């Protein structure tokens, strides 16, 4: 489909400008989401849900805890060479 020397072709995310737009819109969304918290009335089931920015903090901390525990605890325990079962 593409010519042989397609390495030179610039695709969407190869362009610094589009990356910049993406990064800024992402940051803007984060700020907006943090701010929205104060304008909505939450229907909570549990007291902890009422903490300010509960979902933001939970997601961030949960994600980091998940990735780091998988990397530093699970992987050393279970990782074997690719031909381990052969």
């Amino acid at each position, binding site marked *: 489909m593409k010519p042989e020397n397609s390495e030179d072709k610039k695709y969407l995310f190869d362009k610094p400008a589009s990356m910049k737009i993406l990064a800024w819109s992402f940051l803007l969304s984060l700020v907006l*989401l943090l701010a929205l*918290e104060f304008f909505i009335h939450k229907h909570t089931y549990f007291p902890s849900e009422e903490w300010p920015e509960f979902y*933001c903090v939970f*997601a961030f901390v*949960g994600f980091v805890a998940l*990735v780091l525990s998988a*990397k530093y605890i*699970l992987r050393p325990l*279970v990782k*074997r060479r690719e031909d381990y079962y052969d």
Partner: protein
Amino acid sequence: MTEVLPPAAIFIIGGLLVPMIKGKWKSAYMLLIPVVGFINLINIPEGTHWVVEFMEYDLIFGKVDRLSLLFGYIFHLISFIAILYAIHVKDDVQNVAGLVYAGSALGVVFAGDLFSFFVFWEMLTVASIFLIWARRTKAAQGAGYRYLLVHAAGGLCLLAGIVLYVNQTGSIEFGYIGLNGLATLLIFLGFGLNCAWPLLHPWLTDAYPEATITGTIFLSAFTTKCAVYALARAFPGTEALIWIGAIMTAFPIFYAVIENNLRRVLSYSLINQVGFMVCGIGIGTQMAINGAVSHAVNDILFKGLLFMSMGAVMYRNNNKINCTALGGLYRTMPLTCICCIIGAASISAVPLFSGFVSKSMVMSAAADGHMQIIWFILLFASVGVLEHAGIKIPFFAFFGHDSGLRPKEAPLHMLLAMGIAAFFCIFNGSFPSYLYSLLPYPVEYVPYTVPHVVGQTQLIFFAALAFILLTLSGMSPSEMRAVNVDADWFYRKGSGLFYRVMDISMNGLTRVADRVIAGELTGSICRISQRWPEVLCLGVMIPLWSFTGARGKDLQGKIERTRSALQTHTSPIGISAAIATIFLVLIYLLM
């Protein structure tokens, strides 16, 4: 009832006829099967149909109610999508296996008695195994055998439970069973194995990534969802399921983080999503069951879509599927990439995508029941879904580092199949009332409230922020070519241990038996049986000869002749007869 057929029959008979049809018509014929099946299905009224008397029992091939109908609809839809996706496959083994497999799933869903249920349940295993073996690699062969053995064990467990249960209750009707006693526990575990419960799960993560590109689409849809259906039918509200489901949602996400093979990541993700369903069935309220069933429908679509996008990547990149080998494919496979992102958004429960309207029902049901710990586990698992399925799958295949691969876009039929699945992912998410109207119970749940939308969006964006910061700081686990041992270690390495134990014990026993029985015992019996006649005979004859006057060389000669006669078994008849007579006289005297 004469115009409609049992849904399973259309697929199974239709599937078995596939090899008879040649050329271009084959594709059209195969696509027609789910279409005809669907038209047939919507004409079947609710109720009990196709009752066949067998021995003293009634076999029911059509228990049609709202629960079985919904599974029937989605099984037809995913069959059509999977057949379209696989339309390039010329291998009839796969074509027949796929259709018979789908038919067996329909058989399970519409079975009204335990006997026909069990037969279709076992057919699921038998048909699906060919979708694994058809890859024709050494790894697929091994994984297929393990899959077969594990499912055979699960099937026997289920059969034992059914036999005990029928013996106790006297009825083979398949309805609510409930957990009480050994019989129901065995049935429960039999379902659990197909449902990939923790520790019973490794058949799934072992075999699905080894199956053929197109076979995995079928596999991801039927076996586990049939088990979800069976649990929803027989064990709703069983408390153990709440915890089993919660653990299922949580433990695979850790494995998914460090897994290199993207189809294996999706297999762990499959267990995680089925966990939400199992948990919902365990909670057992109307909303929870609705949540579990609607999530099963959505999962079939978005998991199918994700497997299809990864399959297209494999198809166009010479079967490469590891994170370490892929990256940057959005450049030349943009449509596959978009489909993959739609699947990822659906599984991550992004508002307007399908996961948002079904997973939240299970979580709300948990919250309504004041199950705080369960709710937190499910929320944590939702963050985990974002990590492995929402971000990792699209990122490592289509973005990330540029692998330099510039493959062609997926073929048209694959794009169409993915397009249909993607359409339903968005449709179910954006217009949930259609899906809700098909659920077993009336739906009062409203997914689109401002706090729910904002809360879920916050969850997604801040998880994404964590991903970006971890990646930029180099703290994300690097992708590496490795095997991560799971519970299948026990039988994969355990079988080696078993072999050695058997080798030492059984072959040791053989060696001992050889030495003692063959080497020594028979030799000594032989020696004794040669020696004793000689001792007996000479013991009688020597005094007799001495008495008759034989002395010196004469006596020595007699002894030598007798001994050689006995050794060569050529003793004179007179001596034999004399010994026999003495023997008889002795017996006579002793008695």
